[in-house]
């Protein structure tokens, strides 16, 4: 029961392309788990399957002990599992504070009703989190006018605003400059430590993922290639081959 996400033998094909074959994958509650692999190996497909973006062809996905493979995106999000997108998705014509405020949790027990006020606690939390990712001074700007890196930070802050149990991050550092990457790693770690959010991260930046994750899975050609602690994977010949042109 310690596994908050438990994926068992999941397969998914797009027409003739077998994107995921018999994938089994576990994320421990409160951990940071990494998911690596060459481009096109099926990482994002696996994320999409987990959050209910498309139906899976076979296998089972459990979240917090509950079978969720038949649920749809909104239902799964309301259970407390969110994802961010590789192509950043934010509400581009709204300002940053508004982006944050509408990202509050819509779980059944939440007190954020349809006609809830936009002032007070909700606004304060939005501003605090914008400060947390370093966007406080930009809070009144239209979010679509921000730089790509800032938009990624905003999307991350929006996910935190929702207070999820699990957050799936699809390449959080892609397109972000090295200084900002360090800041982001720090914040991912703090979100995990201080807010108790379980993280699952797809990442190509090896330095980032090796420092961040406690357990890493490596996919290749739609199959699970290897798993283990970062130090184990770094010395795994199969992983090295997959990354150095083995596919």
């Amino acid at each position, binding site marked *: 029961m310690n596994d908050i996400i438990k994926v068992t033998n999941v397969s998914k094909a797009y027409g003739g392309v077998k994107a995921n074959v018999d994938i089994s994958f576990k994320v421990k509650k409160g951990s940071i788990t990494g998911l690596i692999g060459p481009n096109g190996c099926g990482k994002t497909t696996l994320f999409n399957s987990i*959050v209910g973006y498309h139906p899976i062809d076979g296998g089972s996905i459990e979240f917090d002990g509950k079978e969720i493979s038949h649920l749809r*995106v*909104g239902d799964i*999000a*309301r259970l407390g599992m*969110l*994802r961010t*997108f590789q192509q950043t*998705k*934010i*509400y*581009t*014509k*709204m*300002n940053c504070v*508004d982006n944050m*405020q*509408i*990202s*509050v*949790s*819509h*779980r059944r027990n939440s007190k*954020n*009703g*349809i*006609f*809830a*006020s*936009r002032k007070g606690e*909700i606004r304060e939390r939005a*501003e*605090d989190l914008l*400060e947390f990712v370093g966007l*406080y*001074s*930009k*809070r*009144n*700007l*239209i979010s679509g006018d921000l730089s790509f890196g800032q938009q990624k930070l905003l999307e991350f802050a*929006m996910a935190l605003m*929702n207070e999820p149990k699990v957050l799936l991050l699809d390449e959080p550092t892609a397109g972000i400059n090295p200084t900002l990457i360090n800041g982001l790693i720090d914040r991912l770690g703090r979100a995990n430590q201080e807010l108790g959010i379980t993280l699952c991260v797809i990442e190509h930046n090896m330095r980032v993922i090796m420092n961040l994750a406690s357990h890493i899975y490596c996919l290749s050609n739609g199959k699970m290639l290897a798993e283990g602690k970062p130090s184990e994977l770094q010395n795994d010949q199969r992983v090295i081959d997959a990354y150095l042109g083995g596919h």
Partner: protein
Amino acid sequence: MMRRSTFITYAGLGLFGILGPILFPAYTLSIAYLWMMVLMASTWDILGGQMGYNSLGNITFFGVGMYVSAIIQISIFYEPGVGEYTSAMGAIKPEFTDQQYYWGIFLGIFGGAIAALALSLIFSTFMFGLRGPYFAIGSLGLAIAAAEITVTINYVGGASGISMPMFPGDIEFRSVFFYILCFTLAVLSHFVIRGMLSTQFGLAINAIRDDEDKAEAMGLPTLIYKQIGWAVTAVFMGAIGAVAGNMAGFIDKEVAYPVPTFGIFMVAMVLLGGKGTLWGPVLGAIIFHIVKETTWTYLLGWQWVTLGLILIINIVYFQQGIMGWLQSKYPEMFGIVVDQSNINQEKKES
């Protein structure tokens, strides 16, 4: 600063609303139509502007409200009912007392609004599966279908329509009476919309406009927001439809479902004023109505050309409309600024 300008705007519009028919009694009905157009534009903007669902079918609710109110007004105090009345082709002229007339019209407005609300909830169950242009065309289909179905129902007079009960007062008082109804409904709709937009609801429908997939991925129950948005639109369109039917005095398919005129005007007014803003539709409706009335008076024969020209200039050069253009030109007026103040410092101060 914005507060002050908002106050001035309300004071100005309020004064005009109250003094208009007193100072220009000849234009009372024309100004009444202005408020009707303000209402139509403002309610269209809930879906079209704020939520990104371009509905071309809101006029359905207008027509349904109009017909339902006619049925209620006639049936409630005339024993044989609407069917008898319409099949007599005007041979029967039931006399209503003043009291019966006023009760009838208020119940009619209320009933029209409720009927439109119910219809919008039915439409919501299947229409919101459509997005973008498909929703626009689908909703246009609803309006056309509603008009055609109405014609086939003999109970409401089929193609020959219904004569509405005669207004009991004199003609000046008639204008003032309908003016007050239109003005009240427009003001009511404005403040209801303003109130709704100031809550989380406003942000939610903006989020649906900007990226519906993201909104769903964040757990936003999008359907309920869409339903509420359309339901509010329908209630006001149904109510104003009931008023418009009585103002016209005679209703048929053309009066109840003016798809090519009001159905398109309400979209054009919002685009002109700036969609997705509170004041854009109001401003657009006022300008549009003034241009329309002036050209109909002084440029008769060219009025459609002038209107078309304005629309083309609007679409080609000012796609964001007047309010949108102002916002991109003077963002600081709308509070879109970088704020270098420190969050902790600000908290200490407050």
